């Protein structure tokens, strides 16, 4: 087991900067996730940890050892590839045994270890199958078993579930978490699926365009996003530009002063600002609500999704607002076209700097 320390890493491909000045410390035994949209540099970072790319600048350390230019075969990381990368000419057992053979273990030891690991991923029955005769989920498990068998210091998973269907994905999520806890292994998980990231991780790093935007626990990232990109990328949110003057926030779109509980961080004072409020934090009613930040609007679209109801509300000047309420029975659903009253609770509003240019 190792801690991973990336200090000031930059990776360029020609004139494309895939990763820019990344500073990151992953603790021993942690389940750490890289989350971000396509092309933001997640895979590139992971591959620098595995040793397939060397950083253009910066250092990669495992514990205190400098690994920056150590070749991949000497790093003892276990990687699970997006397409599994199973060796097609070998059986399940031979695939899992490969890394052990390279390490020159005794035959009997190898056999024992292969059995043990395949037991852990519940594939004992398939030990002598050719890998081409396995289903997608089973191949996924073989790939995991193969990576785990070498008892790696760090487990690296690059979108391991993206090729599976929804139900299998759920199942494998639990499975991966179980194995990670069992082995207590430092794990780095790459995904662009926010649900996956929020539900599995100890900590998450959110990437955008080669830069790490925020590092934190799932709740920190969801509840206290550091900027509008993070707020919008993780979960749904309502974002409006605000102007800060004399300790007040004026929102032109909503046409009112917004009251916010948390005082503004001094460092943000001179930046372009937005308020962010989650759809589920907004109170809606067809009766009068008193209190700060009350608004009026007209229900435009009601979308029923089972556990929750999403409602799109048009405020006076063509400005829209998303609201999510729990499904508490059919009598609580709003009718399209009716006038409603809304309130944005000041304690739920976050003021974030805007990093995206938007009209």
């Amino acid at each position: 087991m190792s801690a991973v320390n990336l200090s000031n890493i930059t990776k360029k491909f020609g004139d494309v900067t895939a990763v820019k000045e990344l500073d990151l410390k992953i603790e021993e035994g942690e389940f750490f996730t890289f989350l971000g949209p396509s092309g933001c540099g997640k895979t590139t970072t992971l591959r620098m940890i595995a040793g397939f790319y060397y950083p253009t600048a910066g250092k990669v350390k495992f514990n205190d050892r400098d690994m920056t230019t150590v070749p991949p075969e000497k790093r003892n990381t276990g990687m699970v590839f997006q397409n599994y990368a199973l060796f097609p000419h070998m059986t399940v057992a031979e695939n899992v045994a490969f890394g052990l053979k390279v390490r020159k273990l005794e035959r009997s030891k190898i056999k024992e270890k292969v059995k043990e690991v395949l037991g852990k991923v519940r594939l004992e029955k398939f030990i002598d199958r050719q890998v081409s005769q396995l289903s997608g989920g089973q191949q996924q498990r073989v790939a995991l078993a193969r990576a785990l068998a070498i008892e790696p210091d760090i487990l690296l998973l690059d979108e391991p579930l993206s090729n599976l269907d929804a139900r299998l994905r759920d199942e494998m999520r639990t499975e991966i978490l179980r194995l990670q806890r069992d082995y207590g292994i430092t794990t780095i998980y790459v995904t662009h699926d926010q649900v996956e990231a929020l539900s599995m991780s100890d900590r998450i790093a959110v990437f955008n365009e080669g830069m790490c935007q925020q590092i934190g626990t799932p709740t920190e990232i969801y509840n206290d996003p550091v900027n509008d990109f993070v707020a919008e990328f993780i979960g749904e949110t309502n974002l409006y530009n605000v102007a800060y003057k004399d300790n007040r926030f004026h929102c032109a779109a909503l046409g009112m002063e917004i009251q916010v509980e948390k005082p503004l961080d001094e460092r943000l004072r001179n930046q372009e600002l937005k308020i962010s409020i989650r759809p589920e934090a907004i109170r809606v009613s067809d009766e009068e609500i008193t209190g700060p930040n009350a608004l009026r609007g007209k229900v435009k679209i009601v979308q029923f999704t089972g556990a929750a109801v999403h409602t799109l509300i048009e405020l006076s000047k063509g400005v829209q607002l998303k609201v999510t309420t729990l499904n508490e029975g059919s009598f609580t659903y709003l009718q399209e076209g009716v006038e409603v009253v809304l309130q944005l609770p000041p304690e739920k509003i976050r003021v974030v700097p805007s990093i995206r240019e938007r009209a």
Partner: protein
Amino acid sequence: MLNAEKRKTALLLVPIILVLAGYVLYPSIETTIESFQRDGAATLKNYGDFFGSKASSNLEALWNSVYISILSVLFSALIGVPLAFIFNRYDFPGRKFFSGAAIMPIVLPSLVGVMSFMFLYGEAGLVPNAIKDLFNLSKVPFSIGGVSGILLVHAYTMYPYFYMTCSSAINNIDPSLEDAAYNLGSNRWTVFLKVTFPLLTPALVAASLLVFMVSMASFSAPFLLAGGFRVLSLQIYFSKINGNLEMAATQSVILSVVSISFLLFMRWFQNRRDYRMASKGIGAHRSEVSNPFLKWTMVCLGIVAMIILLLPHATLLILSLVPEGTWTWQIYPTTFNLENYILLFKDTSIWDPVRNSLFMAFVASFGCFAFGIITSYALVKRKFIGKNLLDILVMIPWALPATVVGMNLILAFNKPTPFSFGQTLVGTFWILPLAYFVRFIPLVVRSTSAVLEQLDDSIEEAAQNLGAKWFYTFRKIVLPIIMPGVLSGTLLAFVQAVGEFPTSVLLYTLSNRPISIEIMNQLRMFNLGQAAAYGMIQVGLIAIVLFISYKFLGVKSENSM
């Protein structure tokens, strides 16, 4: 910074570049230099002669080569394309068998094919004489020779290129495209013109270019059938035989220029975005022929076509059973036995050529095997500057006519060079294996590259990630996965080397006389039976190899060209 990856790439490239420089580039350069020399002085005289009035036969030969090639493309297309349509679009009894038999010409090496055509349709051929007897004519009604003979042989041996490329293109057309056109109200003819035909165009162009190149390079057919008719590949041979190496070099350069421009044109054409089908996994849809009259006409036509197609093979087999000296003045042979085959094992002078051929083909294909693996690996999996150039250099021996390859080697190795370890190779045993090696490098590189491209990079990375060093990964992971492709290419190189005639006739010596040279000798001595028996050995080998490739290595016949 020269990191480990770059060092490995460099290490791989060194042998590749040495071999290509020594045995492909250097010989071509020697030929070019020779073409600019006359009596030891640099001059443009040779080219002046070539294009001037002094040796008008050269220009005539160039022109003949071009027009024969164009006609060959036309005739091959006229046979191959309709056959591809009939066999892939209609279903009738025996379809499968007929479509399998339609590719039978590819098991005949060119020299053997021409030989059986002579036996069949030549001046003393079986067919014209049979007709003469049947109708009591005073002369044979027809016989092939000259242009008509060359064209007939070309059409027969080259239509499979059209047949195979069109078949696979037809099978790749998504039937729903045509259905959509019908649905929009087009009739059969418009659908064909506006939908089917444009979709086939890439395949047709590719096949045309290929046939054109192959027939520009064709040597055996003109060699045996041309009579006084001149083509460029043959002119090179005559110049060399007459000792006019400078003119032979000049002719080679001109033929090379034509061929290499075609190679570059083909690369450009194939790299262009073509109409690949977006949908996958569609089977051919064949319409059952229901009209009984039409159905049985088709079957009959199929049978007749089959007989014509297989007649050369049958003739070869029958003639190989005719012992020496039993067929002199009679019109038809009368005695049949296995003597020619038995002699192979009894008479060492008859067995020697077979042994030579097998040994030299083995050495050459082994070289291609090793060199092909390294080269394909470097070309497909490594990044380096000048890759495109290397790729072209590798394909050059494929584009160059065999006669030119032979001439290049003669002009390069008729003196000691570093690449031949200070030896004069011409006149020794080893010049022929070297020629075969050079000729068939592209074959192995292409078939290996095809499988390597299928191999995802992550497979190698996975092995590395599990702790395997590069060489271990290569041995245990990469090699086993690509082996079928490499082997099928190598086997093909082997059989082609066994049947190779043009370089053999330029470079053979008494000690390494291969089968094809012996066939030529036996023909000169009118010992047709023994020549046919040698031919049968080559045909048998090719058939076995194609069967193995198809059955065990999962290679489709159209990939074997």
